[in-house]
């Protein structure tokens, strides 16, 4: 049980967290034909968009209600309506996900009410599904914004049904993906679920939209992602698999609406967590014997762990990430004997932070991260790309994890879940340790240097 502490300081140095609306935008981008819309000033959107583009190396559709001083004070309902109208004209989105920002939340607008009024009045908006999530910048971080957005999607788009008379597709499961999952990770989970003969409906599915693909046409909306019909059939699923503690509320919402049982997987990285995932799939598909590829992957992971534990065991690690990612990675490494000497996270909304295998989890920034990593003698840093400055100053290697990763290509391809992904992660970590070329030095042992008398003095050669 980790102690959650807040550093006693006013100044935040080098932020660790990204804002909640950005997280909401990322989640919205996992819906097919979507345009996320920030209800705020245009700068809120511009910064978030640049952030997203730098990470995904993709054109990211992201729009703004472009609030100005007057509309902020008088209320932004007109701005929202106008934005929706213009977006529909320009790119005909099937889905508009609205995320509030600090600006509009500070003023305190009743956006749900206004939106209801707009949708009721504007019948021509009917073929665009509109969802709103309250994600003020001043509360929580990326993971929270993502979670709020998924809850909003579930709440707004899942049909209200009578569970008793709803048809059930017993081979269909809902897969709720937390903010910490990359497109490749979602894909890996889907692969595993399909290997059991089950069909997952992924929400939100950024593996189809932000995976970095070239499409045949240009569109002002997200290309790929969970489709509206898919979302509607979620109520027919037999089970909901929620990945990440932050997805618990969404899973509960589905459970309440459609009587679909659920299970939250706090991590799917590491042998035991994946075992639990597999076991659940065995129960759902009713098979005692799992597909050969899964068995093989597990035995490969065990071999990888055996080889990697020499490098992981006893290594002091500093991790800074959103709670779900922090827990998943630190839990996996601690399971192989690593010592999590520094754990910094972004938000207190997620109770999983308490289960991080460290004495203390700081809710702080990269400044705290750097200071504590230095104090505790960490050998490796794990955080997003902004950690590179700390890594350079501390002369430590940086394993990039989380959002944003803008100084390396292929952030969307990183896969650290499932047996395969865990194996890759263990290798990645062990290789980082090995890449720190440690060569024994006489001084380390306190041995006096070899007398100069013995050293070779190259003569001026004569040939």
């Amino acid at each position, binding site marked *: 049980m980790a102690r959650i502490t807040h550093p006693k300081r006013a100044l935040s140095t080098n932020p660790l967290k990204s804002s909640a609306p950005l997280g909401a935008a990322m989640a919205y981008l996992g819906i097919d034909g979507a345009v996320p819309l920030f209800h705020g000033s245009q700068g809120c959107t511009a910064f978030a968009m640049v952030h997203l583009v730098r990470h995904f190396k993709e054109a990211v559709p992201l729009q703004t209600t472009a609030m100005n001083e007057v509309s902020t004070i008088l209320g932004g309902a007109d701005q929202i309506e106008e934005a929706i109208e213009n977006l529909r004209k320009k790119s005909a989105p099937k889905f508009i996900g609205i995320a509030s920002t600090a600006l509009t939340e500070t003023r305190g607008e009743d956006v749900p009410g206004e939106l209801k009024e707009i949708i009721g009045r504007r019948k021509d908006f009917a073929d665009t599904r509109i969802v709103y999530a309250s994600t003020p910048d001043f509360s929580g971080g990326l993971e929270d914004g993502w979670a709020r957005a998924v809850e909003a999607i579930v709440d707004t788009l899942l049909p209200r049904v009578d569970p008793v008379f709803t048809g059930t597709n017993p081979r269909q499961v809902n897969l709720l993906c937390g903010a910490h999952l990359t497109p490749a990770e979602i894909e890996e989970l889907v692969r595993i679920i399909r290997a059991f*003969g089950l069909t997952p409906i992924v929400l939100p599915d950024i593996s189809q939209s932000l995976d970095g693909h070239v499409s045949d046409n240009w569109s002002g909306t997200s290309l790929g992602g969970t489709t509206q019909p898919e979302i509607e059939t979620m109520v027919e699923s037999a089970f909901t698999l929620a990945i990440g503690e932050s997805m618990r509320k969404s899973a509960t919402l589905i459970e309440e609406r459609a009587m679909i049982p659920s299970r939250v997987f706090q991590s799917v990285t590491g042998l035991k967590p994946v075992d639990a995932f597999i076991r659940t799939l065995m129960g759902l598909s009713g098979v005692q014997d799992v597909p050969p590829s899964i068995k093989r992957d597990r035995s490969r992971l065990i071999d990888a762990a055996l080889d990697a534990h020499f490098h992981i065991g006893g290594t002091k690690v500093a991790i800074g990430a959103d709670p779900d990612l922090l827990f998943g990675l630190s839990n996996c490494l601690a399971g192989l004997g690593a010592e999590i000497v520094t754990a910094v996270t972004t938000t207190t909304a997620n109770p999983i932070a308490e289960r991080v295998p460290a004495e203390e989890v700081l809710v702080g920034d990269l400044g705290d991260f750097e200071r504590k990593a230095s104090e505790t003698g960490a050998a490796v840093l794990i955080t997003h790309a902004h950690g590179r400055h700390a890594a350079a100053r501390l002369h430590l290697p940086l394993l990039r994890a989380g959002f944003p990763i803008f100084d390396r290509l292929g952030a969307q391809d990183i896969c650290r879940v499932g047996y395969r992904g865990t194996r890759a992660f263990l290798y990645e970590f062990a290789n980082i340790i090995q890449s720190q070329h440690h060569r024994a030095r006489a001084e380390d042992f306190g041995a006096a240097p070899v007398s100069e008398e013995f050293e070779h003095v190259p003569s001026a050669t004569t040939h």
Partner: protein
Amino acid sequence: MTDTLKSKIADVFDEPACGHNVNKSEQQRKKGCAKPLTPGAAAGGCAFDGAKIALQPIVDVAHLVHAPLACEGNGWDNRGAASSGSELYRTGFTTDLTELDIVMGHGEKKLFRSIRELIAAHNPPAVFVYSTCVPALIGDDIDAVCKAATEKFGTPCIPVNAPGYVGSKNLGNKLAGEALLDHVIGTIEPEECTSYDVNIIGDYNLSGELWQVKPLFDRLGIRVLGAITGDARYRQVAMAHRARVTMLVCSKALITLARKLDERYDIPFFEGSFYGISDTSDALRTMCRMLVERGADAELLDRCEALIAEEEAKIWAQLESYRGRVEGKRVLLYTGGHKSWSVVAALQELGMEVIGTSVRKATEEDKGRVKDIMGDDKHMFENMSPKDMYALLKDAGADVLMSGGRSQFVALKAKMPWVDVNQEKHEPYAGYMGMVDMVHAIDRAVNNPMWADLRSAAPWEEPLPQQNPVMPPLRGICPVTNVSNDTEVGLSPRAPVMVADVAGFASSDTDFEDC
């Protein structure tokens, strides 16, 4: 094989200072101590390997391997001898003999040109030229080439005549010693000699093991004059003939070198080890006693005793902190076995149970001491087949295996902690401080939380609970079996179906992948 090489081999095998050899009959002695190799059941290194191992730790010289690519290409940069100075010894130099070189007899010329290029590029204090099977077979005379090159370039070129096929790694060690005696030792005089100069033979400073004991020498004022060859400079080796005492570390192979140093230069030697606490203390005591016998001030003995008392107390205090974490752990030792009793004693002192130790290369005396420490000889064994070891470890007869790299995977595949105590290991375990490192390594290995996870049952090895027999019916076409099972589900209440009712869901050898 040339006659000179033949007589050299006969000479190094007849070692009067070697206990094994002295006990042999005249007839056996003539055969030499090389065990005949069994085709299909041999795995050790060759004579070239042995010579390279023994000489490569001389850090500032260039090691040039006269051979087709395999000898150096497959073998370079594979050992952890550490250097506090030049890194030239890690550079892989080879003549890379090609088919044309061999057929046309260009070997010697290519070697000479290689030496010239090497000296021009790196200007080392010396070039060690290694002969290998192919040049030896086609009759390249590396002695002549080295002599010519030395004269021409003014840089000593040392021929090391130990082609692989003449014998084992052990023999290669001996031949390397001969090369040093013939061409290096005694070629340079030190600026000044002291009564505290020693030679250390047979320590290669792997991962810095020599540095773990060097601070002890530093504090006693003892100077390592001739390092053969851990972290050595060429000039040091060349001055080895002026040392007062030689310590031969854990090595029967280089005993010939130690004896010949005694005969030629009147330097007495003793055999000692830096593995284990009591061994380290014994080695220091013996060294100081012999230095005093050879003219050092007698107060050295007192300083030595004081140092030993201080270091032992310090190290036991440090080791004590590990007691709680390693107490009661069962250790299986599988090492060369020479002097393993010293390590055994320290482990037992910390409450560990040594359930077995190999005594493959141990002398009778060592075996006796193991017996004393462990109570009886039940726990000693010569060899253990990988299969038996796997079975023993799999049955959890031990908590940790300490061995060389070859049994590493026997342990790991049995999901058993393993600590590397071989020469290729990455952590140094010598002297007093090395013992702490070793116990730390044992602690880190056996107490890794990973083992419990790895040994736990796979999800499919435990039956699914019976209280949840609800099995959803298949709808559409099963992607695994392609069985169509189109049942109309429609708007009916959920109907549970028993698991047994569903057919055709067995897994097969061919795998269903992404669809």
